[in-house]
């Protein structure tokens, strides 16, 4: 079922075959990031978009958009019979192939994304903080004592233009855990869609996700519930019913686990088919 040396050989051959594809994927992300920064930072006050919070928003928006896309493309070879056969006939067990997918999609991609993010973010941040400092000096020189001016100066304080670091984006360990679980759930859903649907997998996966969202809205309406109580579980501590924390924790841990398990079964059943 699992052999360390076989797994290592599988990982090495996958890396040598796929590194160009992954590099292009990240490069396209860097190009999109660059164009976005050009648009955001154009204009005299464009630098104000690159506060620490602005950088944080871009980082997480990019991560949550690109990670499921990357995950959905991991098994794109399964879309065609010839390449699917090659992939399934690799000398490795299904568990090893599945573990490699989990490692690449859920662990290595977020790390690679983070490195790629800073390719554009670092120079943009340096430029924005310089411009903010210059604008602050210009405002201080006016020194009229107006409170409106003081509020504008507060917005240009150096503390608001610190370089964003991913671990700073999480207020606590709970917040980090919640973000990780949410991300891996979306990734698992994307991988499952690419394995389950034999044709036009991406579109069918998006449609399936949309249907899940509609059904959950319907359930919340019928049960008169407040889904944000569930979705905010890791980020806030509002008053909850006594049995809810256990239910929510089970759901938050169980959903990604079951989705990844479904991916393993899908891979196994595709092999059999």
């Amino acid at each position, binding site marked *: 079922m699992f052999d360390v040396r076989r797994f290592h050989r599988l990982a090495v051959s996958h890396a040598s075959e796929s590194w160009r594809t992954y590099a292009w994927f990240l490069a396209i992300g860097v190009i999109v990031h660059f164009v976005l920064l050009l648009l955001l930072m154009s204009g005299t006050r464009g630098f104000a978009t690159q506060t620490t919070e602005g950088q944080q928003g871009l980082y997480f928006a990019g991560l949550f958009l690109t990670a499921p896309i990357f995950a959905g493309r991991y098994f794109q070879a399964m879309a065609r019979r010839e390449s699917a056969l090659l992939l399934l006939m690799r000398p490795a067990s299904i568990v090893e192939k599945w573990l490699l997918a989990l490692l690449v999609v859920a662990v290595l991609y977020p790390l690679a994304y983070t490195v790629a993010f800073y390719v554009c973010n670092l120079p943009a941040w340096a430029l924005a903080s310089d411009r903010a400092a210059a604008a602050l000096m210009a405002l201080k020189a006016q020194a009229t004592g107006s409170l409106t001016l003081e*509020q504008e100066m507060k917005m240009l304080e150096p503390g608001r233009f610190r370089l964003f670091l991913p671990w700073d984006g999480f207020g606590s360990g709970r917040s980090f855990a919640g973000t990780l679980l949410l991300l891996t759930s979306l990734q698992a859903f994307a991988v499952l869609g690419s394995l389950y649907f034999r044709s036009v997998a991406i579109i069918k996966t998006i449609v399936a996700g949309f249907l899940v969202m509609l059904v959950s809205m319907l359930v919340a309406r019928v049960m008169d519930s407040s889904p944000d*109580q569930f979705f905010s579980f890791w980020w806030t501590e509002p008053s909850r019913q006594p049995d809810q924390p256990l239910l929510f924790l089970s759901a938050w841990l169980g959903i990604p686990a079951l989705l990844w398990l479904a991916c393993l079964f899908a891979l196994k059943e595709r092999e059999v088919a």
Partner: protein
Amino acid sequence: MKLTRTTFAAALALYLAAVGLATPPRSIERAVALDMAGVRAVTLRSPGFVTLRLGSRFPPALHYTPAEGETVDVRRDGDTLLITSTMDNYNQLRIDLPATVAALDLERASVDSESPLEEMRLRASGTVSWSGDVRHLDLVGTERGMDCPRSLPCARRLSVESGRIERLTASIPNGVIALGASDTIGEAQLRLGPKAKLSLGAATRLEHLRVVPLDGAE
């Protein structure tokens, strides 16, 4: 793909169960009577949007539904009642006041007077709206720093939604003064700062409106 479908169905069922059973705890509205004897002014500090009602048909009181840890504090300072709340939701706090109150100092609120008043001086540092009949309404937009989320300047909007007003005076250093029903305003003198704006709603007549620059900040 039977096993795959079954496992996915289990994940979906768990997700829908969590969403469906995410019912918020029932909150209970509390009412606290207010001793308004000799009170002519009310100062209110609250991060959330508050509804105030002035009139003589109902007893003065606070009505609120606090979440865990949220409080409302009421103190007296001469003829001024100071109300401080930590509730930050919309309409989580409602305050009934007598028609004898002649001055309000607010942050974010809507004020509805059910009784005609002689005079009302309304100071506001955020978004405040007025409805009701009053002989003289004085609106003052203050530049006092407000504890806004993320230290961003808060939107400031003073609006007169409805009501017969014989004389309206207003001064605002920045933000918007909005006269929603200017037909029922007798005369108005507005002093606007360099970054302030005036908005006239469905105005069909406004014969005595004077707009002059504001000299210095309030």
